[in-house]
């Protein structure tokens, strides 16, 4: 299940992740998250209603679906940022349903946000150091006495500088995070998440607002996470990216998981096309959401590319 860059630069995909036929809620060989009956409604609207979902360990899983499908809500529920009406789920075999977000993070499941949350008036280096877990200097009583935490602080700083160098942010280390570009902030947020040495990294739209020049490096960083043994779950609208790096795709629509599977198979699935276009796409519904049209065009382009090669 390990991956490294293939001969032509294309990433090696992890395969054989599931047991039996690829269908919504299919069993995985080695799941890291197992969720059951997760339901969350806002007033009359059911945002998430997932019967059963397993996320494979050591692979990159994409969570896709049209706007309003409940992807981010599911993310918030799994990370403790929101509480479901019903449902329970386990992470790494431990039940974590209903526990607060900071405890979820401490267990090794770390997330980023759709709207990047760089801590603007902290320096880039301080942003990074904040990510490290189990810092004794973060307790009020010990904070007053530097000799308790100076050594650990030096170790954390060394690790932060190493990660910053990998993300090519080392020259910015003393700048305020607010002074970084949008793409650099995304990189910083991801690097900061890695400071906590997570087992599962959850990225909410890692490509949103990133300029094309940075896209490739972000993709490489995500692929590297897998190489280093981490599991990745990400929400994304960019279909090129999903095809390029995802080993497994979960498609949501109207709060439900409507399809699962290998990226190429899943995108040919009629349920997915329905989800994006609506099941009445042959009848005239007036103007389509431009985002949907773009997504469909990208899918078509990708298929055309595949045929050529």
């Amino acid at each position: 299940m390990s991956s490294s860059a293939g001969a032509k630069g294309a990433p090696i995909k992890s395969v054989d992740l599931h047991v039996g036929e690829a269908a919504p809620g299919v069993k995985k060989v080695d799941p890291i998250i197992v969720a059951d009956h997760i339901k969350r409604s806002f007033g009359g609207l059911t945002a998430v209603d997932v019967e059963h979902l397993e996320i494979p360990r050591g692979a990159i899983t994409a969570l896709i679906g049209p706007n309003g499908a409940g992807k981010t809500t599911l993310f918030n529920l799994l990370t403790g940022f929101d509480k479901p009406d019903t449902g329970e789920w386990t992470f790494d075999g431990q039940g974590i349903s209903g526990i607060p977000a900071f405890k979820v993070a401490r267990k090794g499941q770390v997330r980023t946000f759709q709207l990047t949350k760089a801590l603007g008036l902290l320096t880039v280096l301080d942003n990074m150091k904040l990510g490290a877990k189990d810092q004794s200097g973060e307790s009020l009583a010990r904070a007053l006495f530097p000799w308790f935490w100076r050594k650990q602080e030096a170790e954390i700083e060394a690790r932060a500088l190493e990660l910053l160098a990998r993300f090519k942010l080392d020259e910015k280390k003393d700048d305020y995070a607010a002074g970084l570009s949008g793409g650099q902030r995304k990189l910083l947020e991801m690097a900061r998440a890695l400071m906590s040495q997570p087992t599962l990294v959850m990225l909410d739209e890692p490509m949103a607002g990133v300029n094309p020049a940075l896209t490739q490096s972000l993709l490489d960083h995500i692929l590297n996470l897998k190489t280093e043994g981490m599991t990745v779950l990400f929400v994304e609208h960019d279909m090129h990216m999903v095809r390029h790096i995802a080993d497994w795709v979960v498609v949501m629509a109207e709060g439900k998981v409507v399809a699962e599977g290998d990226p190429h198979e899943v995108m040919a699935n009629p349920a997915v096309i329905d989800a994006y276009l609506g099941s009445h796409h042959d009848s005239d519904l007036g103007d389509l959401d431009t985002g949907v049209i773009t997504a469909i065009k990208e899918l078509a382009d990708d298929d055309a590319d595949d045929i050529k090669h």
Partner: protein
Amino acid sequence: MIDWILLISNAAQEIISPTTAAYALAALGLAIHFGFTGLLNFGQAGFMALGAYGFAIATLTFGWPVWAAILTGVVASIIFALILGIPTLRLRADYLAIVTIAAAEIVRLLFTTNTFVAVTGSANGLQGYKGGFAALNPLLLFFDERDLLGFGPWVYNPYDWWVRIFGWGLVALAAFITWRLFKSPWGRVIKGIREDEDAVRALGKNVYFYKMQSLVIGGVFGALAGMIFILPRAVVPSNYQTSLTFFIYAILLLGGAATVFGPIIGSVIFWVLLSFFSGFIARAVEVGWLPFLSNVQAGQLRFILVGLAIMLIVIYRPQGIFGNKKELAFVK
């Protein structure tokens, strides 16, 4: 003719006055709340009132020694912080602002009401609680209590010097603690919370607990400030109105909200300016420079002038005196 030497020497006295120290310490507590953590505490006057009354009531009603009286004020402010924080710190920042402003008024009105007159002295307040503190004065080992010590404008009796030494000693200790805290990983978490608490939560920090710690520390500073405040005067409930909180905010913004020395220097500047303007206007009315003003009106004019001075500083140096201009470029 206006006696400029007198005006300036009166203003110079404010530099080391215990009131300046009290405002500096209260502003430092507010810097922890507002400047470093982003907590909108509009009830610092309430914390000061609890410190002052806690000290005075423990001394007068229970006859406790000074250390126990100080502890009473501190414990009262911790309980107050917990009562304010437990329901509101999980909510958005504005809820704390509303709750603190109301709670501080409740505290003041409880001390004002006649119901508890035997303990609180109602609107007349309390006095006669200074004996224990005065007896601890180390200067009395060397001087008689009627001696006048000092030089220039700063000539006081040993009690007044003891109040100043104690007050500024507390300010120095609090400033040192604050400086240490915000150089530590603990301070980093707190500043992270100010920027975005969800991001900090996602990194595995118990944001609620940190905010509570910050509220308690700043509140204890406020309570200690309240104790310094009453050493040169009596405890009077009308001193703890909402305007007190806003003066402390003015001091904080003047010095720089997320700094350690800003609130202290801000307090000095505030009181020197206030004293100078009030002296100047009073004399100017006396010698007929401001014929359109009565003496009563003149008393109010000083606040207008102080307001003007603060406005100028905020316009031309919005980050405060000690603040970092670079930080300001990114203020949303």
